[in-house]
């Protein structure tokens, strides 16, 4: 029935070839995941890991997704009687480095980082390697340097998510959007997601789209509303705003309201509850891409467990639990904090059992 809903919606206007192609992408992206597929071979010796401690170092606990990942990690690793110690990076490389160092000093069995690009705390990462502590680098890039026996990557495909978000704009506008793209300059990673994801997609897939880019970083969010206003003042024809991540949405709306631009559509990434609620309420937000944080934690735990058990980690894991939400499928979701935690928005949740089996802990 999703198909028909989509046709009733914006897709009906998709007449150009570009828009049709983009619509394909959107339709694919809005689907839920049906069932779990193991990311690699079974792991031996997980039962030997009981009593060990793993450090989880998120970039900042202020971003809710990391809290979700942290508690899911506790569940996943808890199944192997492995303790999880969380150390908040507080959006500050010095804290991130201190946290990693803390894991090293405490002789952790593994360190899992959340959204910390290697070069943000390169020294600390290197120290961990030297100390022989396996590291799982999550939520930055799908692959990178490092010995798979000691260094693993795991991430939603942010580049793809950015690209799909752009595809929604292309499809919805019939390949004639006047888009304001709001890019986060915080780290090299966020820049790569923007450039290789969204901006490359517009360039490649929508020659008639007009794209204006403004840049913001976490330290300057106070200036974002008026920056958005000024762009709309200069260019009142802007009809779409794509924000790179959800924490830009509120200041963006603020700026749009000032410019009285209340019919602009916003596309964004992360799938936070707040943004999805706005999507459901029809309040400017019209498209969201996000990923299942609970599943991500299990996948990350899997990588950690592999290395802790003396096996190489999987390289280039394609993390499947990603989805796009639009007016067409938003009503299927239970928009509560509880439901968010279960990961049910993204489809099946049988990955938990799947991993337990893979680790030889089932039953």
């Amino acid at each position, binding site marked *: 029935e999703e198909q028909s809903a989509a046709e009733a919606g914006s897709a009906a206007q998709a007449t150009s070839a570009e828009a049709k192609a983009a619509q394909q992408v959107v339709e694919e992206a809005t689907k839920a995941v049906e069932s779990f597929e193991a990311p690699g071979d079974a792991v031996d010796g997980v039962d030997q890991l009981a009593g060990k401690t793993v450090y989880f170092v998120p970039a900042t606990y202020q971003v809710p997704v990391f809290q979700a990942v942290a508690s899911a990690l506790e569940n996943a690793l808890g199944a192997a009687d492995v303790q999880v110690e969380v150390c908040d990076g507080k959006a500050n490389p010095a804290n991130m480095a201190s946290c990693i160092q803390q894991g090293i000093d405490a002789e952790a069995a593994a360190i899992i980082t959340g959204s910390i690009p290697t070069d943000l705390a390169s020294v600390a990462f290197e120290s961990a390697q030297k100390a022989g502590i396996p590291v799982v680098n999550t939520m930055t890039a799908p692959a990178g340097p490092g010995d798979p026996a000691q260094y693993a990557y795991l991430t939603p495909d942010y580049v793809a998510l950015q690209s799909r978000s752009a595809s929604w704009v292309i499809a919805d506008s019939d390949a004639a959007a006047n888009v304001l793209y709001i890019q986060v300059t915080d780290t090299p990673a966020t820049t790569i997601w923007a450039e290789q994801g969204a901006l490359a997609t517009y360039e490649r897939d929508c020659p008639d789209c007009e794209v204006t880019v403004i840049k913001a970083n976490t330290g300057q969010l106070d200036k974002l509303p008026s920056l958005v206003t000024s762009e709309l003042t200069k260019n009142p024809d802007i009809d779409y705003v794509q924000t790179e991540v959800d924490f830009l949405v*509120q*200041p963006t709306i*603020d700026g749009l309201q000032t410019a009285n631009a209340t019919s602009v559509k916003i596309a964004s990434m992360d799938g936070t509850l707040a943004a999805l*609620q706005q999507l459901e309420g029809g309040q400017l937000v019209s498209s969201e891409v996000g990923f299942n944080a609970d599943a991500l934690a299990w996948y990350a735990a899997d990588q950690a467990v592999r290395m802790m058990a003396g096996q190489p980690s999987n390289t280039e894991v394609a993390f499947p639990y990603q989805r796009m939400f639009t007016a067409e499928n938003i009503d299927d979701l239970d928009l509560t904090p509880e439901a968010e935690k279960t990961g049910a928005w993204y489809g099946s949740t049988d990955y938990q059992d799947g991993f337990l089996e893979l680790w030889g802990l089932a039953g």
Partner: protein
Amino acid sequence: MTTITEHEPDASSDPAPDTASRARRTPPYAQLAQRFSLIGLWVVMGAVFFVLADVPLSNFLQGIFARQTPLVFLGMAVVATMAVGEFDLSFPSVYALSGSTVASLVVLHGWSFPLAALAAIVLAVLFGAVNAVLVVRAGINSVIVTLGVGSVALGLGSWISEETSVSGLDFTLSNIALARVAGLPMIFWYGVVLVVVAAYVMSATPLGRHMLFVGANRDVARLAGIPVTRVRVGAWLTSSLLCGVAGVVTAAGLGGFNATSAREYFLPAFASVFLGTVAVVPGRFNPLGMFIAVYFLITGVFGLQLLGYQGWVTDVFYGGVLVAAVAASAYVQRRLRS
């Protein structure tokens, strides 16, 4: 003077008379120049940006005045405490607490908006009361108290909102903040009314006079029969009330609230309040000066953005203009006086 120079005990002595004191003794034309120099500067800057930016005037004005900023409220909160000689670092946190509370109670816990708004404001005022008890009653240094209380308020705000930014308030509520009157949103008019009332109270009523004496010299004020403790406590409560209301109005306007963004208002609010002391009632913390300073700074940043500058340029501008405006004002005043 008074409270301003408290942090600058030397500024009033040779060789560098401060901007503030003595203003009242300067000749009338110098006073006028001083009073309205910031407004003049503002108009000139606005005109230059408008001409350069080449956008319709109404859009230009809306970009400045239709902003959904709590800065006027927060600036007023700071003026209220500063004027009686108190130093408050907790106001952005109390604002954040209020905004988070109203949004969370409605969205996450299903309260009705009026009830949630009331709860949020009461909570904010409660924090103001804690500040007052610790600073005025227990006599603890206000910088430490408000650092501590602010941190607690911020923590509670995160707890209530389950550490996330909450949205999903009924869209129609945004009319509280955004319904347009004469082309500008309610939140602008609230600010205008607030500032006018506050300016009236501070300049024309006994309460304002009492605040002035309490800010200037508490012992003298006490001997003159002014209820010093009550005035000080009142300032803390008023300030927190304003933060509370600002939180509710902002949350309504945005349909939600993000607590972590609140701390961004710390520096701009302070900047406006202090910049405001060079205008209208030179040398005193005053609402009209603060109001002008808020829109002065907004105009500058917005103008630059229209010209295509973003990021670091606006920071540099912001800082440069702040210092330049105050330095120029000090200079003009000194020249006119000599």
